[in-house]
């Protein structure tokens, strides 16, 4: 579930508020958004893709709260790791032209 909005990084663009499919965030005037309904988070990682500055961290745990340490996440480059691996940039889609998934599909089809 969503565990972190980094106050250091967040630029208050509210794109996460707009795009979260489960409406987990609330916008706050002149401040960073808040995680208002964490229990509705479906751990889909979509907000990380749309955040232009890698300020969000979604822990992979679907049902459990976990403690996260922003400094550690930042140092170990886990903030924004999904965005970079996908090839998205600043909230903009990209990277499908380099997607090798077809090789997996062909491999699996040949394996029966």
């Amino acid at each position, binding site marked *: 579930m969503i565990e972190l909005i980094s106050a250091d990084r967040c630029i208050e663009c509210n794109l996460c508020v707009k795009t979260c499919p489960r409406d987990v965030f609330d916008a706050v005037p002149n401040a960073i958004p808040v995680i208002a309904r964490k229990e509705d988070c*479906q751990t*889909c990682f979509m907000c990380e893709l*749309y955040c232009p500055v890698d300020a969000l961290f979604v822990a*992979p745990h*679907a049902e459990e709260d976990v403690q996260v340490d922003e400094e550690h996440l930042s140092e170990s480059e886990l903030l924004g790791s*999904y965005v970079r691996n996908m090839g998205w940039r600043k909230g903009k889609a990209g990277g499908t032209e380099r*997607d090798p*998934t077809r090789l*997996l*599909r062909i491999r699996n089809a040949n394996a029966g």
Partner: protein
Amino acid sequence: MAGPHDASSTTTPSTTYANETGGLILHADVLVIGGGPAGTWAALSAARSGAKVVLADKGYCGTSGATAPSNTGAWYLPAGAARDAEVDRRLEKSAGLADRRWIIRTMEEALRGLDELGDDGYPFPFDEDGRPYRANLRGPDYMNHQRRRVRRAGVTILDHHPALELLWADGVVAGAAGVELRSGERWQVRAGAVVIAAGGCTFLSRALGCDGNTGDSYLLAAEAGAVFSGMEFSAQYGLSAAHATITKGLTFTFASFYLEDGSPLPSEGGDRSTRIARAMIAGHKVYALMNKGEAHEHDWLVRGQPNCFLPFERIGLDPFKERFPVTLRSEGTVRGTGGLDVTGDDCATNVPGLYVAGDAASREKLVGAISGGGSPNASWAIASGVWSGRGAAQFAQRQAGVLGDPLSTRLHTRAVHALGGAGLRPNKTAAGSGFTRELIAAVQDETLPLDVNFFRTGKRIALARAQLDGIWAAARDHLGGTGRELVRAREAASMAATARLVWASAQARDESRGLHRRVDRDGSDPAQTHYIRSRGTDELRVSTAPAPEAVRDLAEEALVS
């Protein structure tokens, strides 16, 4: 016959919205409910047919639904030997319930759609020979692209606007109403026709991207008298790391499976899910280790499907070296197969003015009794979207014609009735959010456990039906609320309604077939190679309909005699 067919709906309290003030009221030729792949293709197609289109999504069109955070293979098969082979393979696996004509027309329409996507700038990868590879769609990118296309086509998108009920006027569907999540305000869209594309139902199992899929499509349609097919084929489960949501099958391409003592998962006794389900029911913990394949092949997965690795990377586990526990999450009717019965080539339903696309519809015509995952579903979302959007646009144009003034004031000023019952208008007092949560948990007890739903028995099916009758009565009496609570209450009602259709249909299939795994019935009974149809909300009705081959045999007999 015009009018809602469910006898019970005559007792449903209904409100006339015609004179209600306040809230947003929009007018459209076509309203599309749901903005996943099916809804976006439907909106594009309706707009192209000249209709003014509104698309309402419970979440955000572009990130919401089962496809957006995932990745879907699709049929990209031009006519030829490879396509013929896939058609035959599909028919063979369908346990007699798929239909060759529908498989082929879906393949053709999906091919057109994928080419259109490529021509319209979706960056497909290229293969070794420099040709674009169009049989795979990366969810976040695909849905981002679809949203932009829909906007360019002039469609009005309403994000965070869950539809809660259909509107009805003089024997036809006339729009829908709901609430805006943020403000809690009511909205309604008056329309000449409606496409339902609000996805399937996974009973809040936390399967990837599916929590918004609470069966809203089904309750909306059931209240209008719609007929369902194949609801018994809803026992598809997706494999994920135990702590995580990622049910993408590709994750496990390189996996071997073990029990807690390190012994291998038994290799006999059905497909992988079946063997894992059996071990889990027997009390074992099942583990996976990605110890197959070559390093360069692993890299395809790491680079192509990065969210397959998030669950491991973020707990500091190397899945190629360390084993990890897995679980099965219900994918209900998303990667299962049941849904609204499609009655025409234009994806009409039996309800006038109501069209259907994607997982909201039964996909038995493509896959019969088995899962629609692994290409049929994604292809169907494109094809059924295109057909339903066009069909709805034409219906709206005909309606306007009947009413005597084309595209039209009369269409939008006629008196409408809201059809919504359970979750919206409790018979007694609304009991609040705690009750809604309890009711959801009670529905989950009858739908999620592997020993209830993955493997079924006649006795447990009967018990599930009895439990759900009680749950439904309580839902009718006490589910309700305002704003977000109203939405949650309605979702709970939709899940209960879906579960009741599932078990009523399952009870009518006294055999095992495909996803309907009866442990007390060995194999399939040739005499039951037919469809199970269901309908209703308070009172359920179930019947059978002949399978396509039986229909063809009859037609041939008629020709001979």
